[in-house]
């Protein structure tokens, strides 16, 4: 899922400077799972904003709403009435949700309430870690199901480097060496021989280097119908 973290309240208050009604709009999917921007966090953020605004002697009305998924037009259309009545929307969805809202509500400032951080999973209670960098050319079958792009600090495709020490990455004692994890898993799978195969350079055009990306499924596109 997409992992995010709430922005500091002070930064959010700066964004809404001058507004007299604000909608805090959450998303009940990824950002709810990582406890950054779901219904629960919308409640916390809205309450924190109200307390901070009262302290500053400002009268701002903060309204709360959470939709199932902000990255889908059908869901965000349902809150049109609320969006239209406020001056500013703080979206606690990921950057995709914020942009989906901005595309739908063109005359309304939609500002981000969270920092969208990475694609990952919940590892333990209160701990989320990165798993995939969306490189667009997945090679997990070659690396024991562990991603060298996201989990090796240098994104080495043929590792480890000389800095790997007792399972830790040279970048920090806190980081597991991604390549040590790959080797351990290949041993578990009885596939250690895969380490001898040189993984060729990736075509990074499928990643960010090729500009904004698109996925097109031709068979699902109806040329006769104008797409919105």
């Amino acid at each position, binding site marked *: 899922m997409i992992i995010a973290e709430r922005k500091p309240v002070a930064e959010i208050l700066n964004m809404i400077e001058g507004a007299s009604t604000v909608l805090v709009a959450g998303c009940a999917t990824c950002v709810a799972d990582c406890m950054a921007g779901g219904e629960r966090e919308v409640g*916390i953020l809205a309450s*924190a904003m109200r*307390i901070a605004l009262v302290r500053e002697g400002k009268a701002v009305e903060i309204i709360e709403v959470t939709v199932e998924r902000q990255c889908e037009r059908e869901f965000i259309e349902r809150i049109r009435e609320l969006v239209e009545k406020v001056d500013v929307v703080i979206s606690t969805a990921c950057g995709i949700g914020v942009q989906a809202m901005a595309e739908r509500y063109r005359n309304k400032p939609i500002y981000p309430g969270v920092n969208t951080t990475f694609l990952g999973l919940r590892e333990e209670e209160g701990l989320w870690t990165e798993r995939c960098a969306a490189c667009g050319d997945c090679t997990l079958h070659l690396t024991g199901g562990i991603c060298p792009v996201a989990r090796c600090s240098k994104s080495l495709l043929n590792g480890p480097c000389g800095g790997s020490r007792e399972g830790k990455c040279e970048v920090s004692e806190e980081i597991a060496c991604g390549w040590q994890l790959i080797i351990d898993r290949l041993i578990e799978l009885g596939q250690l021989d895969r380490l001898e195969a040189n993984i060729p350079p990736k075509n990074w055009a499928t990643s960010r280097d090729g500009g904004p990306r698109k996925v097109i499924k031709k068979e699902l596109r109806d040329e006769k119908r104008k797409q919105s």
Partner: protein
Amino acid sequence: MSHIYVFACQHRIPRDWRPPFSPEEINGHKVRLIQLPCSAKLSTVHMLRPFEQGIDGILVMACSEDTCRSLEGSRRARMRVREANSVLEEVGLGDCRVMLKQRNGSEPAMYRDALEELVAQTQALGASPTRGNNVT
């Protein structure tokens, strides 16, 4: 007069204090006692909302973690109290306006002592900066 909300697990409320017989004043402090089926029911936002209205502090009375009848309830309450305090600190209200006591008893004296401790803590921070915002 400090204004304190008390959230208490039903197993920790003194028998004579169960709603609707809950005291409205303890040791000269205005209190509002809210009975919970378990401290697990207490969400972070339940602890923040009353501060919008200008209360001074919150006392949470939970069971000790190893006797919680919902197993995880009191532990979760501990995490949420920590979260509430960290949000309050972020907005300038200090990090100790919400106090958790995990105990096995349910005597009024336990409440009186905890309230005194909490009030001393909140008074050291000064009156709640949201005071006067229509406490209900």
